[in-house]
Structure formats: C-alpha cells, structure tokens
C-alpha cells in the first residue's frame, strides 16, 4: 500500500449503509470485480458505472452502517476506489476496510470543504489531506492496526505471521 493517495472525489451524505453499498442478494460473491458490478446499484440508474471515474469516496457521518457484510468494502475496492474519507465510520465497516486493505480516513473537517470532482491528496504517513492549497489533519491509525492495512489486508497479514511463526 502506498503512503500517498491522490485523485478525484465522489461525495456521499450521512449514514450510507452497507445494504446500499452492496445488496444482500450479491453476498454469494466474494470476488471484488463481481461485487463491483453491483456496488451502489440500489441508488438507481447510472450506478455503479458513474463511480468508476472517481478515485476516492468522501462521505459524512457513519459511513458503512448496518450489516457487518465485508463485501461492502470489497465492492468499493473492486470499483477501483483507492480510499474512503468520512466524517465517521460504522465500526464494522471500519474493521472490514482495514482487513480488506482499503485505506480509510476519519476527517470531519474535509467534508464541507469539498465538492464532487475535486482533487485531494491523502498522506497516510503524515496524517494530512491536502485540498485546494489547504491541509486537513487526521488522526493516524495505531501502528498495531495500521500494519494490517499496510500489508494489504488481514489475509496477507495472517499469511505473513503464519509463515514466520
């Protein structure tokens, strides 16, 4: 995983639940590409195709609330989204994203500052988001958790610990 992520943002509101991100009928899949074909489908015409031209999702409070389905973060990864920045996350989505190797950042200050299509740069190592000449600091993940994300997710992390032990 790279320490710096740059790209165009798509903006969601508060309480985007995991049923919206990927509907229950697609939980028969675990492959990111198959899931991505149906990601955000519940939002209607144009989804998910519309999201493929963006790099980063920005959302309000409680992103990923509801079901603990891990495929919510997998589907977002499958769309080619490189990170999600939200004012806050639901805890199950937060864990699943780390375990899936999808960078997530809690930064409430960014939300009101950006509009769809803006370019932002996230520096995970420094804990700073740059946007239109402004910097927004965010708390970095504890190292004990961040190392899972760094290795690209929990499966990779486990593989590395199982081979070394």
């Amino acid at each position, binding site marked *: 995983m790279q320490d710096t992520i740059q790209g165009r943002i798509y903006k969601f509101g*508060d*309480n985007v*639940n995991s*049923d*919206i991100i990927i*509907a*229950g*009928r697609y*939980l*028969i899949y*675990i492959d990111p590409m198959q899931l991505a074909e149906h990601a955000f*489908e*519940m*939002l*209607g015409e144009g989804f998910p195709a519309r999201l493929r031209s963006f790099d980063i999702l920005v959302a309000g*409070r*409680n992103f990923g*609330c*509801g*079901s*603990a*389905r*891990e495929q919510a*973060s997998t589907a977002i990864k499958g769309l080619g989204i490189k990170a999600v920045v939200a004012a*806050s996350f*639901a*805890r*199950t989505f937060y*864990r*699943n994203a780390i*375990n*899936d190797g999808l960078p997530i950042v809690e930064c409430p200050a960014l939300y009101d500052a950006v509009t769809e299509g803006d370019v932002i740069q996230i520096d995970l190592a420094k804990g700073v988001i740059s946007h239109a000449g402004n910097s927004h600091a965010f708390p970095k993940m*504890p190292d*004990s*958790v961040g190392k899972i994300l760094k290795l690209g*997710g*929990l*499966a990779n992390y*486990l*593989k590395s*610990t*199982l081979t070394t032990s």
Partner: protein
Amino acid sequence: MSQPGRPMGQPGGPTGQTIAEKILAAKAGVTQVTPGQIVDAYPDLVMSHTATWRSVSVMKKIGAKRLYDPSRLAIVLDHISPAKTEKYAADQQTSRNFAREYGIEKFYDVDAGIAHLVLMEHGHVKPGDLIVGTDSHCTIYGALGALGSGIGYTEVASVWVTGKLWMKVPTTIKLTLEGRFVAGVSAKDLMLHLIGTLGADGCGYKSVEFYGGALPDMSVSERMTMANLAMEMGSKCVFIPPDEKTREWLLPRLSDPADYKPVIADENAVYEQSIEVNLAELTPMVACPHQVENTKPVTEVLGTRIDQAFLGSCANGKYEDLAVAAAILKGRKIDPRVRLIVTPGSKEILLEAMRSGILATLVESGALVTNPGCGACAGDGGTMADGEVSLSTANRNFVGRMGSNKSSIYLSSPATLAASALQGVIADPREFF
C-alpha cells in the same frame, strides 16, 4: 491512575469499571483497561452463519489448517435456508463439510433458526462471555450479559486460527428505564424511540448499559429486542445486567450451572453520558423509509397502505412476539390485500407456537407461516415489487433490503404489525388492548 481528561468515579478513589471494560480486561488477560485502549482479546465464542463458507475460503487462501480451539466455534446456517439456488447449496455444503472435518460440535443446520436465538437457547451464551460473529446484531448477546459484536468473515477466519482479535475499549452510555409501558407499547417502541432520538450513530463505537426500575419486570425476550435494536444506533455492544430473570431463563439451558457468573459494573464506573426514559410516556412508534432513525409515532402514519406484513427476525421473531400478534389476530381475518408472512425465529419457538396453539391462530387469521430462520429480512422470500409497501418487525428498512429499490419498508412492533394487517393500513395497536 486515570487518564487525562477522564473523570474519576469517586473523588480520591480508584476508577470503577463498566461491564465492557471488565469483560475486555478479562479476555485480554489484564487487570484493568481504559476507554480508547486497544487490547488483544480472546473471544469465548465465534459465531458464523451462512457466511461460514467465506471464512473457510480465507483459511484456504492463507494456507491455515489448524483452529485455535474448535470448541469456540459456533456455526448456524440461518440466512437463505434451506438453499434456494445451487450456489447457496454449494456454499452450505462447504460449511457442513468444514464443520464435520474439524469436529465443530456447535453446528446447527438449516432447520435450527436464526443464529443469535439458537445460540442463546442452547446455552452457548453466558454472562461475561466475549462473542464475535459475522453479523452486526451480535449485540443481542448482551440480553444475557455477554459482550457481543459483529465482525467480517476474514476476521472470523483470523479468530478461528489465532484465537484473538484487536479490540478498542469503548466508552459507555448509561440508559435508565423507569415506569411501565402502557398497553400496546413494547420494547420495540422504546428502541425505535431511542434510535430516532439519538440517531443512527448516537452510540457509535460505544457500549450501552441498561438500568432502572423498569428492568426487573422486562422479560428476556424484551431484553433481546432491546440489545438487538441498539445496534441500529451504532452500539458496539449492549448490556442488560444479569438478574433473576436472566438466571431463571438461562440456568436450565447451561450444560454446567457453575458457568453462570454474572459480570456487573462497579458502582463508581465512569459513563460518558446518562439518559433516562420514562416508559409510561412512550407511544407506539414506526420507522419510516429508508432509515431506522426516521421514526414517527404511529399516529402520524395511520392509514398508510401496506401490501405485506412480515412478523419475524432476530429483533421480533420470538415466541412472545408471535403471541402478542396472535392475541390481536385471534378470531379475526387479515385484510385480503395484505400478505402476512410469519417466520418463527427458531425451531424451539416454532415448536412452542405449535404446542400452545398460536400457530393455528396465526394461520386461521390468514398468515403464511415459513420455516424458522432469517426469512424475508435477509431477502429470503417475501420479495417486494416496485411500488409495494412492507410493514416489518425486523430491524432494518434500508432501500431495497426486501426487494425492489422502488419498494419501501416501515418497521414496527409485533402488536402494531398485527393491528395493521387486519386493516390493510398502518394502524394503532392500542385499540386492541
């Protein structure tokens, strides 16, 4: 020593511990923990439901062969059961084969019912336990004083293999309940009121402990509804401290009664926030499309047409829920425009409903009764067409959860559901009490 900015429980005295703090400390093998601290905790039980095959696939992917402790695994095939397509059948086969290969004794097949209810009924959930599982509504285990929290399938595989997971110690909110419900108002209405007031993330990352003079009279079934629905305000875990009701319900179900060891909070435990609710002031509530926090008193949505009524789920598919509905439906017929689907939460509940006769009452009123399990709440049957409206006793009304993204879901108590099924529109249950 207290952390900076954290109030002491008593001036000059040591800081007491909440239930979540005590359980996480015990499972991490330390004497005391502080909110915000990250610990490696060893769960007593790891639940996986229909998602089990996905965790099996992770084990294969990482090349793991050994489980940390097979006796800590519980597997219940509850969503989409029995299998409705070959894909589901193959996935369930993978789960069954895994359970056989590893000698998983707490394995329950498609006949058993909803994992949460099945595990509690079979004595696999005890006060003070730490339980994680592939389902957000694991919070329900707090009805018996256990710390339950949802995780994803990769993390379940990780706990299977390593026995542990990292957990952040949450702050705790104290909810005190006083007074008594008026007739026709129930635990579901209380929870919809709280979710509407506090919001979908009102208890985000936090533990919730229930107290108050109203609790001793509340049944274990009502407590399950409360601990289940508290997830919809973001709670990480929920506790109804064990009391006589808990002991009475649980002791006959435990293989060893000596395992019953309630964990309660210290008197000087520190709470982030205290909220009091007078149950007597509550009215029947409904969650309107498409967010659970979008709640209104039933009186504001009276007359809303419904096409389907679903009585079931881990929130309200228990025997008492079915009995409340049956009492209203007895000797009456539901509106011919409504499809009433009843899905008992578990085999035990189904059997009890058969023996007491309420199953016959429900069927005579016009209900369709399905096999135990998650049923329509998990998109298994009862699919909604464009423009249709469902009233459901489940815990989520998110867009498209029960079918078309042009259909809508209202959530209510079993009593409101039964009253509404009779009239074909959302109705006030209080007229039946």
